[in-house]
């Protein structure tokens, strides 16, 4: 079942007198429970493509359909709401809310969606256990290591059972041990939750674990490899 359909998407920036074609005619599909990485040199358009997939930016032309919904046709408030319900984000620098505990960070999206307390508690416990940090539920981000913070960020991204998770260089700030643990956890959750994971990365360890590798160059897909 197709979760994401990208149809001939272009993104052109006109910030200076020179037009920058950040994404140039990309057409891709993503199925349910995929574990895909987007690779390519710096400036190849990885982050721009991820921003377009996440509805954080809109394409200059082309269509991005999530479960059949065209993101560019949604109004600003509906797009935010759509993002909250359907897309999980994992950022390079974790971006947890520093004043909330690990548990509260994971619960945050569920609270915005007005889940009941019991539903929130059960889901949070399940996710914290899943990322191996149930015992740190009441710790604030500042008391956690980088790897632990990123695991909490993954739990947060999965909290409301989104259609897919976008992870922009999630291992970039982690040491190799933490990165390996994080990737194992993400792969496990990908299997268990049947949620599609799409990474942009330079990290060979991530690429090694992926079941699909999409390579971008100058905003174009130059290869799309599905691995067994």
């Amino acid at each position, binding site marked *: 079942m197709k979760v994401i359909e990208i149809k001939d998407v272009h993104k052109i920036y006109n910030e200076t007198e020179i037009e920058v074609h950040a994404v140039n005619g990309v057409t891709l599909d993503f199925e349910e429970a995929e574990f895909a990485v987007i690779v390519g040199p710096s400036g190849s358009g990885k982050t721009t493509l991820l*921003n377009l997939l996440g509805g*954080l930016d809109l394409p200059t032309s082309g269509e991005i359909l999530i479960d059949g919904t065209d993101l560019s046709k949604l109004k600003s408030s509906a797009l935010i709401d759509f993002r909250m319900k359907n897309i999980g*984000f994992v*950022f390079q620098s974790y*971006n947890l*809310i*520093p004043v909330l505990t690990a548990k509260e960070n994971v619960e*945050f*999206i569920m*609270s915005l969606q007005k889940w009941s307390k019991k539903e929130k508690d059960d889901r949070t416990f399940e996710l914290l256990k899943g990322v191996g940090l149930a015992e740190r539920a009441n710790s604030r981000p500042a008391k956690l290591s980088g790897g632990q913070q990123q695991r909490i960020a993954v739990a947060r991204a999965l909290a409301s059972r989104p259609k897919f998770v976008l992870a922009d260089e999630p291992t970039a700030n982690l040491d190799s041990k933490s990165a390996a643990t994080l990737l194992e956890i993400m792969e496990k959750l990908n299997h268990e939750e049947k949620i599609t994971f799409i990474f942009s990365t330079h990290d060979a360890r991530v690429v090694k674990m992926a079941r699909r590798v999409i390579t971008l160059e100058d905003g174009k897909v130059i290869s799309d490899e599905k691995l067994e």
Partner: protein
Amino acid sequence: MIFEIAWKNVWRNKTRSFVVISAVAVGVFAGVFLLAALNSSVVQRIDSAVNEELSHIQVNNKDFRSSSDIQNIIPDYKGVVSAIKATPGVKEITGRVIIRGIASTSARSMGVEINGIDVGKEKEMFSLSAKLIPGTGTYFETETKLNSVFIGEKLAKELNIIRYILTPDAFASLEAKKVPADVIIKLKPLSDQRFTSEKKFNRACETLLSSPESEKYSLMIREAAWSYRQGSKIIISFLDINGMQTGAAFRVCGIFRTNNDLFELKSLFVPISQLRTLTGMREGQFHRVIAKIDNNKHTNEISRKIKENLPGYEVLNWKEIQPDLAMMADLIQQIYALFMVLILSALAFGIVNTMLMAVLERTKELGMLMAIGMNRKRIFSMIMLESVFLSVVGGFAGMAVGEVVIAITGKTGINLVKYSEGMEAFGYSAHLFPTIEPQFFITTAILIILTGIISSIYPARKALKLNPVEAIRTE
């Protein structure tokens, strides 16, 4: 959740929040306390006006106030009293004979308003008898062959029946009040010298004392030297009912001290029977009927009803007699609100600045929140709540401290005796007992919350303008 995050965000930078909260607290405390002090002077002034000088409502012959002619009596006193009594809310009524005259001693003469009063009734209705200066008499209670008069301290001073003498008793009293021995020694050359005015006495003291000593002890010295010979006589002359010049000697049966210099100087009181005998007025003849009511707040309504019932008379309430005071009383709420708005407006700039810094520092986090699903309404609410928390915590702390200080100073009073001359000339007490109505705290609380909301608009708009993609990239 937004509520909780906003509250926690306030305490993220404790020092900065503490500074802005303290500024709000100090500002609100200053506003509340100053207004309580201002309010107390107005409340005390109204209380004095109603309970010592004017009463709530006065009814006169239509021509009485314009001509002050002794002939302008109330034609149907009993009818007037019945009409007033029949008005709901009226508590007590009495009548006065009021004539203009001259009070004199061998030293001075002063134009005065002579009030012939029903002594017993007036004692029940007014608190003027309680303003009797101890040691100056008994408020008409001592039998005397002469006529009796109750006068103000200011008039007594003008008529030179008050002296300032540093007697051995006065020195002993200064010692008891812990005035330093060297100050007392410096004053010895004035022993037993008689000064006929406060000014002359002060001047004599100032030549002997240093300026700080004078400033610190002059009030105590003056009080110790204040001397009055009980039963002093004054002559009061006036026109009788036939327009003939008449007058009599009156023994001063007491001296009162109020906060109103003009009232002390111009009003004196004698038993109504004595004044009638001297003027040839008959029993049952009055110039003015005065009434007190249950609740000062109903003054306008009750006086309007009495006016309707007594169309041929001049019916005035205290607000019409002293419109300046009425204006203060009526405008006081608006003055409070304006004053607080000014203070809070100044504080709002501090809150705006703090919130702008908070938004700037949290650009990346705000971008992340927008990305994961915080909509504009929630972002705005979060910034607004943070701003409201800052103002509410500071504001409520300021109000709490203000209430405690008002409760304490409301009992102990604030002595502004240094400025008493100026204040008492306008009828305001130099001893303030700060007081405030609970309604004021409600108004202040609403204004504080509004300040928080208004202060949040600009920083919140800044936050809403952030582009999540760019904000997340911010370092």
